[in-house]
């Protein structure tokens, strides 16, 4: 099996259309940029204040004032624009973002997302996540299906929420699940797994789409 993160990132990248404005979260979601088809133009937003984010620079080209929201050096593409944090979140909250891709500690069948704290253990803060999840037109959770075997796709999140009912799509190395009114719809499956295996790694009851598509890996 090819690298798990690559499988997920590659599949997420297929969700975008030409001209889309997208925000990619820190970590795995950042990798999605590497798989955007060359046939379309996707504009990346960085919530610290610009649109038109490009890839990481050569060592010699690093500019300390040009970093992404995770403080990693990046570049800008032609047509980029910088702005302040109020404008950045006006874009995010105002519905101008076609999609946001971010990780999760837990996500559930109602589209609830928990990704900003583990009470008594780790409280990094929500950063821009609550606004991103509330404001983006499409919220895509991109993550490994379980955390070293421990289940993350729940019937109901037990950790403090980032936002209620905002997640549209969950993409893992096992498959693609859509949040619907009836529950989680398994739309695509990685051919290396069976439906039973995916369900076993998932607390929420999966509805299996017909036909169930095969995930490109």
């Amino acid at each position, binding site marked *: 099996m090819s690298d798990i993160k690559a499988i997920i990132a590659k599949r997420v990248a297929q969700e975008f259309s030409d001209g889309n404005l997208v925000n990619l979260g820190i970590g795995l979601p950042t990798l999605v940029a590497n798989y955007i088809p060359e046939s379309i133009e996707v504009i990346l937003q960085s919530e610290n204040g610009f649109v038109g984010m490009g890839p990481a620079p050569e060592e010699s080209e690093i500019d300390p004032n040009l970093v992404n929201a995770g*403080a990693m050096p990046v570049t800008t593409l032609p047509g980029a624009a910088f702005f302040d944090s109020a404008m950045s*979140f006006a874009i995010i909250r105002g519905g101008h973002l076609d999609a946001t891709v971010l990780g999760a500690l837990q996500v559930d069948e109602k589209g609830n997302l928990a990704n900003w704290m583990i009470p008594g253990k780790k409280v*990094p803060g*929500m*950063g*821009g996540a609550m606004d991103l999840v509330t404001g983006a037109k499409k919220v895509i959770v991109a993550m490994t299906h379980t955390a070293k075997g421990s289940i993350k796709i729940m019937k109901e999140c037990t950790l403090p929420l980032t936002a209620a009912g905002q997640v549209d799509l969950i993409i893992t190395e096992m498959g693609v699940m859509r949040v619907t009114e009836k529950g989680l719809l398994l739309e695509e499956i990685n051919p290396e797994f069976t439906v039973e295996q995916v369900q076993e790694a998932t607390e929420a009851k999966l509805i299996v789409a017909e036909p169930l598509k095969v995930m490109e890996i």
Partner: protein
Amino acid sequence: MKKLMNIDEAAAHIKDGMTVMLGGFLGVGAPSTVIDKMIENGVKDLTVIANDTSFPDQNIGKLVVNKQVKKVIASHIGTNPETGRQMNENEMEVILVPQGTLAEQVRAGGAGLGGVLTPTGLGTVVEDGKQKVTINGKVYLVEEALKADVAVIKALKADKKGNLVYDKAARNFNPLMAMAADLVIAEVDEIVEVGEISPDMVMTPNIFVNIVVKGEK
């Protein structure tokens, strides 16, 4: 109307117990020279409003490590473990706010608005104890405006009247904080003659800036 000051004169305005807004996003666009002087001066019991508490060995992060801060209002503290430790051991109060809400709260403080009506945080712990307003059937949280005694911000350039220009992603919260404090200290890399910044290109108008100080790098 004396705006240009040296670092000692400027930092002398920041006193024990004050509420201080500090620009920057994970240290990028942070007024490091003034913060170093605040550390040297040992001002204490500060309430700091900032996007994050940076890293332990950098700007705002050092203030926290040096225990000069009694309360922090920020969106993210994950990159500075000392903030988490002081929070968990009740040595420092930490109020976590969604980043877009924080940006608008600061802007509202500067703009004479009572607060912000945002959907961000609904259905999460962020809404605890807050007023809600329903507009056209949609519910919004009332997030109160924030003001400060002093804002210390970082810009690329100032002219001698105090008009400011920022560089790339180092803009972030700086222009917003410039509006929201009784006294505004701008640390800049370069001070130019009046007229060298075109009136159309000014990012923070001089009328907000009380003190301009040249940074050490």
